[in-house]
């Protein structure tokens, strides 16, 4: 994980000449799957701060700790012209208590996520239309033994999402209001960490996700997020996710997000509430 982060940072310095034509915080943070946005959902914004004719990029590391489980994610993304974004994220899900309790053959599940996001039309702040982006994520689960034992049908899959974002200047009692809503077409179990499709259901579902944030000033944002999830596996329920977050954007180079996440039931263990911390460097 450390080596990956170091590589990511090295790669990112290559983009040191990247533009910063967009306003502070409009590059968002980084979602768990590597795309620019909130924490558990992507936004329609693209990585970094590049506007037309400019490059943007970010590198990030995120940890979610629920007590029973731990999820570590690291990755990077590049975007060009405020139009197209390519991203990569590596997720490692530590099974912790579950692995010890059940004497599981593996104590962690890993996954690679390759993402593409294209801004179709609109602008986060200025155009008449909100910014609307279409994304595709190709996911490869790396430790498929446990997922296959609990009913997952495949270890790799591609999913799509459509998302719209709009910043309303002064929209929340004078404070800037960011509203984001999306639809995802996916059969990923727990993001894909438990494989794709299942014994209960093997087709993709249309899933709603969204977030609302209030910008207290240029540097601070507070908000909530929600993400609907499928329920494909018979051995355990899969809960929708939600979180409350606070984001700090001291400059266009750095963003820090702290959240309280309610992840519900994950792989038979219920009430997985926990802390989420993400640090992002933008270039």
């Amino acid at each position, binding site marked *: 994980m450390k080596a990956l982060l170091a590589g990511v940072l090295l790669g990112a310095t290559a983009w040191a000449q990247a*533009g910063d*034509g*967009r*306003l*502070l915080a409009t590059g968002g943070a980084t979602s768990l799957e590597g795309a620019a946005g909130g924490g558990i959902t992507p936004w329609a914004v693209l990585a970094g701060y590049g*506007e*037309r*004719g*400019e490059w943007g990029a970010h590198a990030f590391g995120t940890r979610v700790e629920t007590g029973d489980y731990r999820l570590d994610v690291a990755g990077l993304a590049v975007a060009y012209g*405020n139009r197209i974004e390519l991203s990569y994220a590596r997720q490692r899900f530590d099974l912790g208590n579950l692995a010890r309790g059940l004497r599981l053959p593996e104590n962690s599940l890993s996954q690679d996520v390759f993402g593409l996001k294209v801004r179709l039309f609109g602008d986060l*702040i*200025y155009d008449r239309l909100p910014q609307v982006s279409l994304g595709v994520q190709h996911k490869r689960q790396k430790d498929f033994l446990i997922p296959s034992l609990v009913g997952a049908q495949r270890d790799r899959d591609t999913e799509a999402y459509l998302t719209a974002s709009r910043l309303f*200047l*002064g929209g929340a*009692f*004078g*404070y*800037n209001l960011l509203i984001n809503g999306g639809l995802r077409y996916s059969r990923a179990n727990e993001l894909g960490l438990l494989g794709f499709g299942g014994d209960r259901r093997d087709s993709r579902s249309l899933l709603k996700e969204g977030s609302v944030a209030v910008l*207290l*000033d*240029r540097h601070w944002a507070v908000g909530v997020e929600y993400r609907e999830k499928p329920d494909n596996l018979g051995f355990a329920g899969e809960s929708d996710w939600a979180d409350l977050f606070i984001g700090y954007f001291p400059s266009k180079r750095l963003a820090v997000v702290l959240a309280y996440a309610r992840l519900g039931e994950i792989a038979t263990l219920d009430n997985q509430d926990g802390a989420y911390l993400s640090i992002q460097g933008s270039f």
Partner: protein
Amino acid sequence: MRRLVLVSCLMLAACAQQPPRDDSLYQSLGGQPGITRIVEGMLLNIADDPRIVAHFREIDIERLRDKLVEQFCVEAGGPCRYTGDSMEESHKGLALTPSDFNALVEDLQLAMEREGVPVTAQNRLLARLAPMRGQVIDR
């Protein structure tokens, strides 16, 4: 007769006055002196901003300051009249980019922050100016 003249005068005076307007934003920005300091602060920030300073080299900065003060005053609901050129006219041939526009927004935000303008008043002024982007860029 004298009474009729008096009534007519009163009515005329009433008509001559502007309809009551919401000048709360104008007050929040500190009225005429506050807006003048904000505009001058923004122009000083632009002078230090390598991204866009080149666009301001060949122009009469004092006139620009006066027209911007008028414009911000009008947009804030203050007792002013804008006497400058239209936004399209004044940006013609400059081929300004979305990045240039945002750079100026940042220079304005910084000036308002330094002036101690409340965040909500900053947002209200930006919300009044943001729709002008289409008349400013790519001209």
